[in-house]
């Protein structure tokens, strides 16, 4: 019992630390990737090739003046950035990030908790991320924030449907909602082979869910200043960023677990396989951002409702038919 408590606490602390650190260093990675794509160098001053840049940025944000607009709803204004970060950090509780290891004769699964409804837990939490945006945009009591928030909410509702439906195929094949089971049923073949369309839909819909380019209408700089977080400064602003980049890591981890075989892989240690796969998916997200221009609003809605949603429904039907035909 005590052993279980200690290992769980250690796992929670490790995940907490790694996620926050990863979120900070993703800002650097994003700037470096952007720089490479645009034939620049990116941050070079702080540390070797800008390696200390995220820390410098963090310290700067920490010491900035914390401004709350006079007409803002103070409680909700402070609550919103917290609401953004909590679901992101909590989602990782059910993601298995390595094969079970043996410590002092006890078998320790590298996953904080293996609930039997793992996928539903993730979906439930990701549907809550919307509130940070809504509350922040509304509580700021500013036109830009409100417009950004309304746009983002409409967008997130549209894409959440396809996001959820794209996973159904994986659940059907695995026959289980527990993520540990889904990973172990991919030991022979990754689900991306059976569910290529589901994978693509999840990739696109999750990019839209995170409000990243080409779906960043909620914070379109050219028209809305910064959208829902226009009025935020200092650490509250940083919280929005931690939430955004943490979400990238979490979504990459979900894709890895559901479609890319999780921590399964030959030769290398399982945790390393997991990290490599997550890193590659993160690179795809960054690559998206610096390759595509922003969609127009009607194009965005058309893509969500008229292309992705029917496609994900068709994917479920086809998956079902093939499973019946193969007699599984």
């Amino acid at each position, binding site marked *: 019992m005590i052993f279980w408590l200690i290992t769980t606490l250690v796992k929670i602390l490790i995940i907490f630390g790694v996620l926050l650190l990863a979120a900070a260093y993703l800002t650097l990675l994003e700037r470096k990737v952007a720089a490479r794509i645009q034939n620049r160098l990116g941050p070079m001053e702080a540390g070797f090739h800008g390696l200390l840049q995220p820390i410098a940025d963090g310290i700067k944000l920490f010491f900035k003046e914390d401004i709350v607009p006079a007409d803002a709803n103070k409680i909700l204004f402070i609550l919103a950035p917290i609401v953004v970060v909590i679901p992101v950090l909590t989602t990782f509780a059910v993601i298995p990030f390595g094969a079970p290891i043996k410590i002092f004769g006890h078998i320790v699964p590298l996953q904080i908790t293996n609930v039997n409804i793992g996928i539903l837990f993730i979906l*439930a939490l990701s*549907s809550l991320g919307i509130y940070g945006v809504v*509350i922040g945009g509304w509580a700021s009591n500013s036109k830009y924030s409100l417009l950004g928030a309304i746009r983002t909410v409409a967008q997130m509702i549209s894409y959440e449907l396809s996001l959820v439906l794209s996973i159904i195929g994986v659940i059907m094949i695995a026959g289980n*909602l527990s993520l540990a089971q889904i990973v172990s049923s991919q030991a022979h073949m990754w689900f991306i082979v059976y569910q290529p369309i589901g994978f693509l839909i999840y990739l696109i819909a999750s990019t839209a869910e995170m409000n990243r380019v080409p779906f960043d209408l909620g914070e379109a700089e050219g028209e809305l200043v910064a959208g829902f977080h226009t009025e935020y400064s200092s650490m509250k602003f940083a919280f929005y960023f931690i939430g955004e980049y943490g979400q990238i890591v979490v979504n990459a981890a979900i894709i890895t677990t559901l479609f890319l075989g999780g921590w399964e892989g030959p030769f290398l240690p399982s945790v390393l396989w997991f990290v490599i796969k997550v890193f590659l998916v993160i690179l795809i997200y960054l690559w998206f951002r610096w390759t595509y221009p922003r969609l127009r609003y009607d194009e965005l809605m058309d893509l969500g409702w008229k292309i992705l949603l029917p496609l994900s429904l068709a994917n479920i039907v086809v998956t079902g038919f093939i499973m019946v035909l193969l007699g599984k």
Partner: protein
Amino acid sequence: MEALFYIFSIIAIFSALMVISVKNPLTSALYIILCFFALAGFYILLNMQFLAAMQILVYAGAIAVIIVLAIMLLNLAKTKGAIKDFHQLVIGIIAVGLLFLEVILYIDAAGEKKPTGIYTNAIINKVGNTQIIGEFLFTKYVFPFEVASILLLVAVIGAYIFAKK
């Protein structure tokens, strides 16, 4: 476990009271989300993780979002005093009375109940109740399940037609 039950109860009752007593519609909507979370906590205490996840996913993640979006789009300011309407009063009293009656009926029928049929507690713990819910929905209770689905479909199409007008 019992302590958790009381904590969830206090949160649920407090947030439900706040929903109807705060002046600001958005704050009220946020309290109803808190209430949904407390109810999800009850489901987990009852060992119904599936219902708990659905409670969050459907109610807090979808329905409450629509409520919040409607409040934001309509830009409702603080409510200017309660609207006093005779019909509202009558409907309210009848609804409260019915709910009270239901509570009394439930308390009357309460008592230790064991799962009936082939599923004993041991099997439920082994298979997991999510699978069992799924099995029942698609075998024994397939008719009510499909009727409910068609009702929802009709509502969706109806909403679409009204929006088009």
